[in-house]
């Protein structure tokens, strides 16, 4: 599975290069690095890792079949060594790491992410339009205000239980502009 994911990433990267037209880099000058400030929704410490603002927007009602659930968060590595986030586990659902990949033409597609490197001293953001977790197959209703138990599996720090606050899509912007957003790992 890792090999397939890597191949997909490599192919997608080829497309990005081929179609680049010099548009603004995804993290540079990105309006998502918003300036609003507010309270951090939640914080979890896992060894030298600080995980905060773990949120899952309530899925939009769409009738039969539902819609996948996204999970967003920041991970700040305050330890001396790098770690990686390898998988996310959510009871009753199949979670996978993804990266939105643009082609320079504004074309967006989701590319599976085999893992996310967490360099020491840096913050890695899982935010809309960038890295995110997609959860499919959750049968139980997920509604505003719920708390979803989530396990983040780190290569060094190991499995870590955290929880995701269920929020509205409209509130994501203000929530994800707080806390560790000030320091973006590219």
């Amino acid at each position, binding site marked *: 599975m890792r090999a397939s994911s890597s191949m997909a990433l490599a192919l997608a990267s*080829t497309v990005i290069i081929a179609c680049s037209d010099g548009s603004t880099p995804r993290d540079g000058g990105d309006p998502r690095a918003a300036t609003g400030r507010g309270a951090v929704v939640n914080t979890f410490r896992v060894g030298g890792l600080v995980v905060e603002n773990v949120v899952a927007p309530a899925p939009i009602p769409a009738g039969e079949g539902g819609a996948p659930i996204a999970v967003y968060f920041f991970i700040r590595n305050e330890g001396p060594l790098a770690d990686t986030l390898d998988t996310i586990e959510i009871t009753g659902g199949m979670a996978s790491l993804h990266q939105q990949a643009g082609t320079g033409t504004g*074309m967006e597609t989701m590319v599976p992410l085999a893992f996310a490197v967490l360099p020491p001293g840096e913050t890695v953001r899982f935010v809309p339009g960038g890295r995110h977790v997609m959860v499919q*197959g959750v049968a139980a209703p997920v509604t505003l205000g719920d708390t979803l138990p989530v396990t983040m599996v780190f290569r060094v720090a190991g499995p870590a239980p955290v929880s995701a606050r269920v929020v509205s899509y409209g509130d994501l912007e203000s929530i994800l502009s707080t806390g560790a957003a000030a320091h973006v790992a590219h």
Partner: protein
Amino acid sequence: MLPLHRLAATIALGASALVACTPSPPTQRGGRYNGIEVKPAKAKGDFRLTDTDGKPFDFRARTDGHVTLLFFGYTSCPDVCPVHMANIAEALDRLTAGERERIRVIFVSTDPDRDTPERMRTWLAHFDPSFIGVRGPLADVNRIEQQFGLAPSVTSPAAPGDTAYAVGHAAQILAFTPDDSLRVYYPFGTRQQDWAKDLPRLIRVGSD
């Protein structure tokens, strides 16, 4: 459920078909809008699809004289599409009723196989009951996207019956002004406050 490795292959292979990119929208920010202004503004153009009531949808006729926000997306999208729609809905709530009446939001499905009219209606109503969903054969939708300078969408179920596939699609929202001109491309990342500032400005185009 589509296995992840098949999903990856589907997305990657689909994306590889886009190497010969379509004409790019403008990419320079700055100026009077919080998006990427089209200079000079282009004529609105037209297309015909079907709305969620099953009635013919004539883009020009249904949006004539209104600020029109046009987006190509799909309801199974967990990230870009609902965030865009939610941010616009939040911004619309900050406008006066009079301003609100002068704006139309059109959502064109890039996933017509899964996006039934009922599903689109339910999904869009969650954000704002006034949002208009339209759909049609993907080939037609892709031609419309290209007509507006966007890349065509990639919808590639690996096999009949696969329901857990992703769709690559343009992430910009196109903004047309009441003078029926394509005026601004808003990339993903446009904030609620950007919309709240720009929508009244767009309404005034042609009346200043």
